[in-house]
C-alpha cells in the first residue's frame, strides 16, 4: 500500500456518558454508551460500524455530529478538533458533516414542495443567488436520479423510494465531505435495499464522499465497507479491513456475530450456534472484559483486567486470548 492519506475523521478515546437519575432527580449512576473509542476514517473510505442494539453505535455517530457533546476524548475532523467548538464555529463544520437517518424521506416537511425543501440548506449555509442555488439543486436532483419536474411536487406525491432520494439530495446540496449513515437499510426489502446501496455507491463516486456506515446487518457491511469496527457495550472489540475480519474473525464476539447470520445455501446456523444470553444492561457493565459474561473463552483474568486493543494479524483486537 502507498503512504496512507491523513484521516478525515479521527476519534481519540471518545466517550459519551449519560446520567441515570432516580425519580427524584438524584443522580444514581452513569450509562456509559460510548466509552473510550479510537477510530480513523480516511477520505473516500467507507467504515462500517456494527454491533447489537444498545452497543452505542448510534450514540457514537450522534456525538461525532455534535448532537451530543462528548464527555471525554477528541473528535478531529480534517485535522481540527471539533468536539468542543463554540456554537457559532461549530456551525461552519456542520455543512461538511451530514447525518442520514434510517428513512431520510420521513424527515421531509409535508407542507413544503420539493424545490423549497432542497433550497433551504443552501439558503442557510451559503450566500448563493437564487439562480445559482437553482442550478445546484437541479444538478443534485439529477445525481440522485429524479426528474426536474419533481421540484413542484409535494413529498406525499412521491413514492417511498423517491422520497428517500429527495431526503438524500437534501443532505448532498451542501456538498458534505463526511456522511454518517445510521441504519440506512434496516426494514427494507432486499431488492429495495440493493437499489439504495447502489445509489450510495454512485453518490460516493460522484461527490467524493466518505461514509461511516452504521448497521447491524453484516452482509450489507461486507458488501459496502472497506473497513469494519465491531462494537460491544460502548467499546470497540475488533477493527480492521472488512475482508480480513470476515475471513478470520479473531475476537470471540465477532466470531459469534458472524456465525449468527443466516446464510443461504450454507450450513444452518441454528444447528450449531452457541452464543447464549443477551447483552448485559449498559448501566451495569461487567468488570474487566465486557464480553466475558457471554464469552466461551472467559477465564479469571478476563474479570480482573480489561484487554486493550492490540494489533494482531492485520487488525486490532481487544481480547486476552484471541
Amino acid at each position, binding site marked *: 500500500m502507498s503512504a496512507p492519506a491523513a484521516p478525515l475523521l479521527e476519534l481519540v478515546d471518545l466517550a459519551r456518558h449519560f446520567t441515570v437519575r432516580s425519580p427524584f432527580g438524584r443522580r444514581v449512576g452513569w450509562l456509559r454508551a460510548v466509552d473510550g473509542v479510537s477510530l480513523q476514517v480516511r477520505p473516500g473510505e467507507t467504515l462500517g460500524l456494527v454491533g*447489537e*442494539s444498545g452497543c452505542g453505535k448510534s450514540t457514537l455517530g450522534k456525538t461525532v455530529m455534535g448532537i451530543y457533546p462528548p464527555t471525554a476524548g477528541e473528535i478531529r475532523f480534517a485535522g481540527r478538533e471539533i468536539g468542543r467548538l463554540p456554537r457559532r464555529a461549530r456551525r461552519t463544520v456542520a455543512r461538511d458533516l451530514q447525518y442520514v437517518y434510517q428513512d431520510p424521506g420521513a424527515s421531509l416537511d409535508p407542507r413544503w414542495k420539493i424545490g423549497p425543501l432542497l433550497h433551504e440548506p443552501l439558503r442557510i449555509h451559503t450566500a448563493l443567488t437564487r439562480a445559482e442555488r437553482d442550478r445546484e439543486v437541479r444538478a443534485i436532483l439529477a445525481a440522485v436520479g429524479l426528474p426536474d419536474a419533481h421540484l413542484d411536487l409535494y413529498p406525499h406525491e412521491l*413514492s417511498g*423510494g423517491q422520497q428517500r432520494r429527495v431526503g438524500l439530495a437534501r443532505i448532498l446540496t451542501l456538498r458534505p465531505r463526511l456522511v454518517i449513515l445510521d441504519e440506512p437499510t434496516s*426494514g427494507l*426489502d*432486499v*431488492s*429495495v*435495499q*440493493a*437499489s439504495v*446501496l*447502489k445509489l450510495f*455507491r454512485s453518490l460516493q463516486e460522484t461527490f467524493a464522499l466518505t461514509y461511516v456506515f452504521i448497521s*447491524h446487518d*453484516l*452482509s*450489507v457491511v*461486507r*458488501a*459496502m465497507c472497506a473497513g469494519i469496527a465491531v462494537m460491544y457495550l460502548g467499546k470497540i472489540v475488533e477493527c480492521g479491513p472488512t475482508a480480513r475480519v*470476515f475471513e478470520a474473525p479473531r475476537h470471540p464476539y465477532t466470531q*459469534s*456475530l458472524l*456465525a*449468527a*447470520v*443466516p*446464510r*443461504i*445455501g450454507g450450513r*444452518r*446456523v*441454528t*444447528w450449531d*450456534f452457541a*452464543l*447464549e444470553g*443477551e447483552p448485559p444492561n449498559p448501566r451495569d457493565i461487567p468488570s474487566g472484559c465486557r464480553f466475558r459474561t457471554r464469552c466461551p473463552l472467559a477465564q479469571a483474568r478476563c474479570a480482573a483486567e480489561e484487554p486493550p486493543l492490540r494489533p494482531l494479524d492485520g487488525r486490532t483486537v481487544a481480547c486476552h486470548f484471541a
Partner: protein
Amino acid sequence: MAELLAVRGLRVDFATDRGPAQVLDAINLDIAAGEVVGLVGESGCGKTTLARAILGILPEGAARIRGGEVRFRGTDLLTQDPAIVNERVRGRAITFIPQDPFSSFSPLFPVGTQIMDLMKWKSPRAREQARPAALFGRYPRGRHRADHEAVLEALRAVQIPEPARAMRRLPHEFSGGQRQRLMIAMALLPQPDLIIADEPTTALDVTIQAQILRLLRALVKERGVSVLFTTHDLGTAHELCDRVVVMYAGQEMEAAPTDAFFGRPAHPYTRRLLESVPGPDGLIRDIPGEVPSLVTPPGGCRFHPRCDHATAECRVERPAPRELAEGHRVRCHHPVDAPAGAGA
C-alpha cells in the same frame, strides 16, 4: 403428508380512496401437517393479508373477500359459522406470533395474568367443559390449577428463567428476546395444529434471532405443529423452513422445497430476488422498476413489467401452476431451468 390447510383462489380487495386495491389475486397455498412453510416476498406483496385472511381477522369494512376458500382440516373457514370458528379455530387450532413483541402485551398487567386470561378462553382443557366460558364467568379451580401448571411448563420450554417469578413481572421487565419467547409460549399453549408467525424475528438482533429460530424450530418439530412463517428475510426462511412460497404483488409465483427453492429457482422473480441479497463478492444487483400499484395492477402475470423474459402472453394471461418436480410448482410461462446463480 396429510393436508392441513389449503387456500384456493383467494381474492381479497381493500377499499382505498382511489378505488379497490386487489391485494390478493387468486392465491393458492398448501400446508401439510407438521410442515414449516415460509411465505416470502417484499413488503406490500400481501403476506400479512394472507396470514390475516387465514386467521379471519381482516379489518372489517376495509377488506372484502371476493372469492376462493380457506380449507382447514377439510372445512372452509370462510363459509363456516363465525361463532364456531371463534370458539374452535381462532386462537385454539390456529394461533399467532406477532411481529412486534413490544406492543403485544398490555403494559399494565403482569404477564402471568395476561397468559392466564388467554388460558381461560383458549386452554385445550376448556373443551372438556359443558358450558363455554363467559366474560364474568368463574374460572373452574381444577382447570385453573392444571392450566397454571401448563403455563409454567411452557415457560420452562421457552427457557424463561424462574418461570413462577417471571409470571408476576410486568412486560417492561423483559427484554425483546424474552418477550418473543413469551409470545412463542403463548402460541404453543392452546396446543394448536397451525401457528402463523408474522415476521417474528425482524425486531431482534442477529444473535438473539439465531437463538429464537433454534428454539422455535425445536419446539414445533417436537410437537408436530405446522407453521406458516412470513418473512422478508430470505436467510431466516432458509434457516427455518421445509418449504418456501414466494409472493409478488398479491400473486403466488413459486412454491418449492427449501433446497430446490434456493438451489434451482425457476421463476425469474425468485431468481432476481435471490440475486439482490448482498453476497460476499460485494456486487449489488437490484431489480429495475418499482412494485406496481395494486389499484391498477398490470394484467396477466403481475411481474411482467419488470421481467426480462416477458412476452405478449405474459401481459394477457396469468400462467397456470406448472409442476416441475415433486412439490416444486411455478406460475410462469417461461420458467428458467438452471441452478441458482447461473444468470436469469
